[in-house]
C-alpha cells in the first residue's frame, strides 16, 4: 500500500483474476499477519507480549509522524508533545478532574486537535530545517511546562490512569492478554483510518504538497490549510498512542514529551519506510526488537544501534519495506 494512487477507468470493478499478483500476495500476507497477531498471546511468553504491546503503541505514534513526514513531507521533531498531551489529557481528565474515561478520551483528542491546529498554523509557515526546529521548540516548551507545573506533579508525573472498563465483555483490561487485544484493536482501527485518509483526495493532496508545493498552489489548492489539517490529524494519532501508553503504564511523565521520543519516532519511520502505511509498524518492530536484543548483549547498545541505523539508511533505500519492494520488483 504505497502512496501512489493509480486510478483506472472510472467505475471499473476488477475481478479476482484481474487483481495483480502483488496485491493478492499482500492480501494473503495481511490475513496471515492478522491471524498471527490474534493467536500471539496463546503462543508466546508474557515478555514477548509486552514487546508486542510496546511495538503497537510505538507503531501508532510513528504512523502519526509518517502522515506528516512521509506523506506531507514535513519532518517534525515535536510530535512527542502530542504523544505526551494525549497521556496528560486523560490523566488530568480522569485522575485530576474525576471524569470517566469515555469522556476524557474524546475531550483530550479535541483539545489536542485544537492545540495542534494553532501550533500548526505557526509551524507550517516554515519549511525544512526551520520547520524541524520550530516544532522542536514548541515541544520543548510543553516539556518545560510539564516539568514545572505543580498540579501535574512536575517531573514526578501523574499516576492512577485507568484502563478501559471492559466488564461488560466479562474481561478486565488490567489483564495483560486483554490489554494486548485492546491495543491491537486500536492499532487496527488507527491503521484503517490512516489507510482511508492517505488514499482519499485529501491524502493525494498531502502527497502533492510533499512532491511540489508550488505546483499544488498553482493548481488552486490553499496549501497552508491542508498542511495544518495534516499537522492536526498527525497530532491526534500521536495522542492516541500517548493515551495507550499512559494506560499501559498507568502513568505519564514529562519524559513522554522529550525530544528523544520525537527523534526515535522519526528513526522508526526511516527504518520501516516512509510514506508506506505499514512502514511505521515495521520500523517500530525493528527498532524495539533490535534495541532489546542489543541491550541483552552489551551495555553500549546505543552505539551499536547507531551503527545499525546507519546501515539501514545506507543499504535499505526506502527503509525495510522499500528494500522488500525492490527485492520483489527484481524477482518479477
Amino acid at each position, binding site marked *: 500500500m504505497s502512496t501512489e*494512487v493509480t486510478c483506472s477507468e472510472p467505475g471499473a470493478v476488477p475481478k479476482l483474476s484481474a487483481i495483480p499478483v502483488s496485491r493478492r500476495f499482500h492480501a494473503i500476507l495481511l490475513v496471515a499477519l492478522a491471524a498471527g497477531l490474534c493467536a500471539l498471546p496463546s503462543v508466546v511468553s508474557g515478555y514477548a507480549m509486552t514487546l508486542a504491546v510496546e511495538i503497537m503503541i510505538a507503531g501508532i505514534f510513528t504512523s502519526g509522524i509518517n502522515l506528516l513526514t512521509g506523506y506531507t513531507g514535513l519532518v517534525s521533531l515535536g510530535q512527542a508533545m502530542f504523544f505526551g498531551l494525549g497521556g496528560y489529557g486523560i490523566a488530568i481528565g480522569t485522575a485530576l478532574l474525576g471524569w470517566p474515561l469515555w469522556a476524557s478520551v474524546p475531550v483530550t483528542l479535541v483539545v489536542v486537535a485544537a492545540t495542534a491546529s494553532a501550533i500548526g498554523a505557526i509551524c507550517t509557515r516554515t519549511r525544512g530545517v526551520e520547520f524541524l526546529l520550530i516544532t522542536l521548540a514548541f515541544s520543548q516548551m510543553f516539556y518545560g511546562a510539564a516539568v514545572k507545573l505543580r498540579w501535574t506533579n512536575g517531573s514526578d508525573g501523574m499516576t492512577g490512569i485507568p484502563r478501559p472498563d471492559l466488564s461488560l465483555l466479562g474481561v478486565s483490561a488490567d489483564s495483560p492478554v486483554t490489554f494486548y487485544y485492546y491495543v491491537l484493536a486500536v492499532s487496527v482501527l488507527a491503521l484503517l483510518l490512516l489507510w482511508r485518509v492517505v488514499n482519499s*483526495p485529501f491524502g493525494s493532496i498531502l502527497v502533492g504538497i510533499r512532491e*511540489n508545493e508550488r505546483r499544488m*498552489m*498553482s*493548481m488552486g489548492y490553499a*496549501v497552508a490549510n491542508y498542511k495544518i489539517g495534516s499537522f492536526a490529524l498527525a497530532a491526534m494519532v500521536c495522542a492516541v498512542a500517548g493515551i495507550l501508553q499512559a494506560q499501559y503504564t498507568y502513568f505519564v511523565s514529562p519524559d513522554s514529551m522529550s525530544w528523544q521520543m520525537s527523534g526515535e519516532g522519526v528513526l522508526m519511520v526511516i527504518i520501516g519506510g516512509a510514506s508506506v502505511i505499514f512502514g511505521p509498524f515495521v520500523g517500530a518492530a525493528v527498532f524495539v526488537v533490535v534495541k532489546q536484543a542489543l541491550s541483552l548483549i552489551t551495555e553500549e547498545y546505543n552505539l551499536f544501534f547507531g551503527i545499525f541505523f546507519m546501515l539501514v539508511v545506507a543499504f535499505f533505500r526506502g527503509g525495510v519495506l522499500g528494500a522488500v519492494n525492490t527485492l520483489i520488483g527484481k524477482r518479477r
Partner: protein
Amino acid sequence: MSALEIRNLRKAFGGLQVISDLDLRVPSGARHAVIGPNGAGKTTLFNIITGWQRPSSGEILIQGIPVQQGRPDLVTRGGLSRSFQKNMLLESVTVLENLRVACQAFDASRHSMLRSCRSFSGVVRKAHDAAAQMHLDHVLHKKVNELSYGQKRQLEVAIALCAEPKILLMDEPAAGTSPDERLNLIKLINGLSSELTILLVEHDMDVVFAICDVITVLSYGKVLATGTKVEIQSNPQVIEAYLGQHHA
C-alpha cells in the same frame, strides 16, 4: 471587457526597477506573446500576474476583477492558470495522478478524507480528457520521472488546462524540446479552444509566430512595441533590441 488587463505595473527589487509603468490588455480569445531579451522582466511579469510576487504598484484585472496578490491559488480559481518554465510536476506519481489531483482542485471531493479518490469517477474522467487533449493518453500510467522531456512539457500544459481556465499563461512551453517535440507542442496548443485566451512567454520566435497573433516586446521592464507579427518583424527598435536581422 479584456480577459486580462494590466495597469501601470511597477516592480522593483531594491534599487533595481524590473518593470516600469507597464500597461497591457489582452482581449478574450487572443493569442498574445510577450517576448524580449533575458532580464526584460517577462518571468517577473508572469509571477506578478499569477500572484507569486507582489508588484510595487499597479493593478491587474482578470475578467475585470482585481487579482489578490500573494495567493496563487486564488488567481487560479479566478480563471487564470499557468505552466512553468521549469517543469513543476509531481515527479514520483503517475501522469494520471498528476492530472487527477489537478482536476480535483475544482471539485468538492477535494475535502473528502475517508473515500477513495478512485470513487470520484467524474474527476478521473476529467483527468482522462485532459490527457487526451495533450496526447498523453498512452502514458497515463507511467510515472512522471519515466517520461521524455517533451512529454513532461505537454503534461505541464495539460495540468494547467485541468483548471478549465479562461486565460492560460505559458512560460516558455517549448524550452529545451527537440524540433519534433516543438512542432508537436505547437500543434497541440493551436488545437486548444479558440475561446481560451493565451499569454505566452517564449524565446523561440518560430514558436511565437506559429501560435500568436499579437506580440508585445519588453525591454528593460518597459513595453517597446505591441503589434502583429508583421508589425513587430518590421519594427526597427525591436530588430535592434531583440530580433536581429534573422527574423526581420
